[in-house]
Structures are given as structure tokens and as C-alpha cells.
């Protein structure tokens, strides 16, 4: 049997640099220069950012008592207006459902154009740039645009959510389609399938679990987002939250927060179960 030494000495075989061999054999390696420089640079950027953003643990420690006082004021939660809370929460949920469905459909359409393995280059760049612009716009600004277009109410919120979804989820949809295994695509090309048939049979079925999973994630995000959109009059429970804060009605505020937590937790758990089933 050939020994390791004999194998190493075999003339026709490419040899490993002895210094590289020694380095690889060491249990504890001296970090490479680029790793050290990269680490130092990362720490420096973090400290620079923390300083610029006035991040201060001491200040947090000093203010902790105020926070405690604020939380104390929220007790006990006031469920006397539970009917109103549930109705508004239902409206928020409905907004999120419609916004997610429309957002996911439009995101899917946009993603076909933004996936490099599907779209021609000119369409790819148009779709990617469109999504970048949408993503750069804050949700509240989009909501305000639609409030001024269609007036106060949940419809403006739904439109804001739908457009916002394209920016966030469209890119992820496109990347899910780009990441599919090439084998089935090759097979479909080999049977003479058209571009549409390749998308239909080789790309979408492979990307479907990811698309569904991200749509559920979008839905969870939209439920939380819908509570914020209400701040600018775009429907949902957000407006009631703002009103309660302005009136120092902390009991009512806390009751709403508890209801939102319950709703989000239920959705989160249901999503987890669905995700588990589809993957």
C-alpha cells in the first residue's frame, strides 16, 4: 500500500507548498493580515456610527427609571373599548390581507422582469431600478401620497402596502427565481419548451416554496405595518393608537398593544406551520 510519504514524493503529482501544509496543520492559526485589517475596520465603522448616532448606554441607564414609570402608567390595560379595538384590528387584518395579495401578485410580475435567468437585460435593469426607487421611499411617504390621492381611510393604506411590497418582496422573489436549480431548466430547453413553459414548469415550481414563505413573511410585516400606516390616516388601528397616546389614555393604549401582540403571534405561528408544510 502506498504510504503518505511515498505519495508526497511522487514526482508527477503536483505538490503542496510545505509552508502552506504547516499552516494548515496548525490547530491555532495566526489570523491573516486581511482578516485583521477587516476586523479592525468593521469595529472602527461601528464606533464611528455609534458616535454619530449618539448611541449612549449610560443615557439609557439614567433614563431606565422613566421608562419604568411609562410602563407602570400603562397598567392595568383598559379593555372597556374591546369592541372598537377588535373592529379596528379586523380592519387592519383585512388591509394586510388585500395589500399582501395584491403586493405579492404585482411583485411576482415584477420579479419575472427582474430575474436575470428569465428577463432580457434591458427589462432586468428597468425592473431592478423601479424596485430600488420604491424601496428607497419610506412607507409613510407612500401612504401620504395615496391619502392625498384617494382620501383618508384603509384604501389608501392598502395601496401604500401594495406598492411598498413590490420594493421589498419583488427583489426577493426575483432572487428566489434566480437561485433555482439549472437542471430542470436544461431539461425543459432540451424538450423544446418555450420560454413561458420553462418559467411555468422549471422555474416557478422550484421557487414556489420560497415565494410562499416570503409572501407569509410579507403578510406578517404588513399586519405590523398596517398599525403604523394608521398614523397618517391610512386606516387600521394606527390612528386609534395615536389618539390614545395623545390623550394619555395609556390603559386603552396597552389594551391595543396586547391585542396586536396576540394577533401577530397567532399569524406568526400559523405562518410557521404553513412554511413547515410547504418546504
Amino acid at each position, binding site marked *: 500500500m502506498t504510504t503518505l510519504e511515498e505519495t508526497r514524493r511522487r514526482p508527477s503529482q503536483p505538490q503542496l507548498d510545505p509552508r502552506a501544509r504547516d499552516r494548515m496543520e496548525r490547530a491555532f492559526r495566526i489570523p491573516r493580515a486581511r482578516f485583521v485589517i477587516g476586523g479592525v475596520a468593521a469595529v472602527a465603522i461601528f464606533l464611528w456610527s455609534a458616535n454619530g448616532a449618539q448611541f449612549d448606554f449610560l443615557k439609557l441607564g439614567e433614563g431606565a427609571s422613566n421608562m419604568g414609570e411609562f410602563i407602570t402608567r400603562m397598567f392595568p390595560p383598559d379593555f372597556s373599548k374591546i369592541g372598537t379595538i377588535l373592529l379596528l384590528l379586523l380592519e387592519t387584518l383585512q388591509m394586510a390581507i388585500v395589500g399582501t395579495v395584491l403586493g405579492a401578485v404585482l411583485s411576482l410580475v415584477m420579479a419575472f422582469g427582474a430575474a436575470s435567468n428569465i428577463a432580457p437585460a434591458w427589462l432586468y435593469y428597468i425592473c431592478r431600478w423601479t424596485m430600488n426607487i420604491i424601496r428607497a421611499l419610506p412607507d409613510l411617504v407612500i401612504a401620504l401620497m395615496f391619502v392625498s390621492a384617494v382620501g383618508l381611510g384603509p384604501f389608501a393604506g392598502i395601496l401604500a402596502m401594495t406598492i411598498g411590497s413590490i420594493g421589498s418582496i419583488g427583489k426577493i422573489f426575483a432572487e428566489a427565481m434566480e437561485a433555482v436549480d439549472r437542471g*430542470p431548466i436544461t431539461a425543459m430547453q*432540451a*424538450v423544446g419548451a418555450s420560454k413561458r413553459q420553462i418559467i411555468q414548469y422549471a422555474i416557478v415550481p422550484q421557487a414556489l416554496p420560497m415565494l410562499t414563505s416570503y409572501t407569509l413573511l410579507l403578510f406578517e410585516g404588513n399586519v405590523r405595518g398596517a398599525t403604523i400606516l394608521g398614523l397618517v390616516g391610512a386606516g387600521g388601528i394606527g390612528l386609534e393608537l395615536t389618539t390614545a397616546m395623545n390623550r394619555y389614555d395609556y390603559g386603552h393604549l396597552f389594551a391595543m398593544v396586547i391585542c396586536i401582540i396576540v394577533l401577530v403571534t397567532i399569524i406568526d405561528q400559523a405562518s410557521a406551520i404553513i412554511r413547515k408544510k410547504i418546504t
Partner: protein
Amino acid sequence: MTTPTLTGPNQSVSRATDARVSVRDLRVRYSEAEPLVLDGVDLDLHAGETVALLGSSGSGKSTLMKALTGFAPITSGDVRVGDVDVARLRRGQLRDLRAGVGQVFQQFNLIGRLSVLTNVLTGSLHQAGPVNVFGTFRSADRRRALELLDRVGIAHKAEAEARSLSGGQQQRVAIARALMQNPRVILADEPVASLDPKMSRTVLELLQSIARDEGIPVLVSLHVLPLALAHSDRIVGLRHGEIVVSGRTADLDAEQLAPVYEIDEEAEED
């Protein structure tokens, strides 16, 4: 029909008149900067025969198969599948050509989440036209797909997800998908490289019986010499893009096939 004879790299190959696939003096180069991947290859495939294509990695086996379906550029030479001149085809016409060439891959290339039946049905996509937007296939196609699954012995798994099948079963589904195309020829690129020896024999026996029973030529690239000797009517050996051995399997032995796998010291040292 021309009787293939044992030929060396410089010996001429007589032109067959009834070949389903005919390759003459084929040269393939992927880019100007790269060397020729195929250099003067001649090959005929006749109805009902199984031809084993032997050669080590990088010898040009896959490129030859790709050239037959327009997936590799034909630098010079003549490639005909039926009466179609592959080098002259435009993009849309290439789809028509591919629809008539069944291909079987090493990694099966099935759509794992779709059912076995749907995977077989995708073989008929070219005839389906634009009407099946919702993924529906005609009853006649479904009936034929089930018959083909019977043919490859896996009809009982028709409704199972393709990914739930073993490697050998998946390869049989892939063969049924190729048959669904009503192919003029079947090209199998290392179809048993991912399978165990027993399953390899089963799959190769299936391919050979299909060639015989359906009268379809099957070109199958292999790495394992005993498998090629046991499951082919003819063997073609490629080395560095050139045919170094070609002849009837019955006339060949391991010694005659040795040049195919001869160790190239210079290449090894590179």
C-alpha cells in the same frame, strides 16, 4: 446498412445512407482563445442501435451530445439529425430540433416538486402550444404518459412527487419523459454515473431495449468499460476530442479500447 468497422483516428469512416444521425468532420471550439474540444469527429447512429460513447472527463463526450442539439457551437463540419442540418438552424428551429431529440441526463433533471406523471408530460410541451397556460395536458397525452410509465415500470408512482423517488426510479422517469417526445434519437449523457451498479445495469438494459423495440438510435456516454461492453451494439471512444476507437462491441475487447483511457503523462503533469 453499412457495417461499422474498427477504425483508428486517421482511418476514414464510410458514409452511411440510412443513418438517423450523421456527423462528419465535426470541429467544436467554444471560443477563439480555447483549443478545439472536438476535432474531426465522424459518427453515424442507425435505427435500433445502442452506441456507447466512451472517454475520460474532458474528452468531448458531452460536447458531442450538445452539438447534436445545438447547445454547443459547430465550428465546422456537418451535423445532421434526420434530414435537418443542425448548423444552419435558427433559434426557433432549434426548439423544433430539440423536441425530436430525447435527452437523458446524469442528474435526471426532473422537477422535484411536480408529480412523476407531470414530469413525463413535460416531454410533450413542444406540441402543447400556448393553450396549456394552466398546466393542463390532453387526455391522449396523459394516457400515453401513463403507458410510458408502464413501459419503464414505474406507473405505480405516477402521482408521487418526483423528488421522493430513488435515483434509479428518477432516471426511469427521465427516460419516459424522453420517450414522450416521440424522439428520432435518444442522447443519454452519463445516465448511470449517479447510480449504483445494479441500478446502472437496469437503466442501460432499459435504454437498449427501447432502442431495439422502438427502432430509435440511442447514444449513451459512459465511463465504465464493462457496462459499455455489456449494454451496447457499438462503441465509439473519444480522446482529446478525437475518435480513437470505433467498432462493433462484439468485435472489441478491453485491450483494443485501452487507448481511450490511456494516461496522458503530459496532461497529468499540467
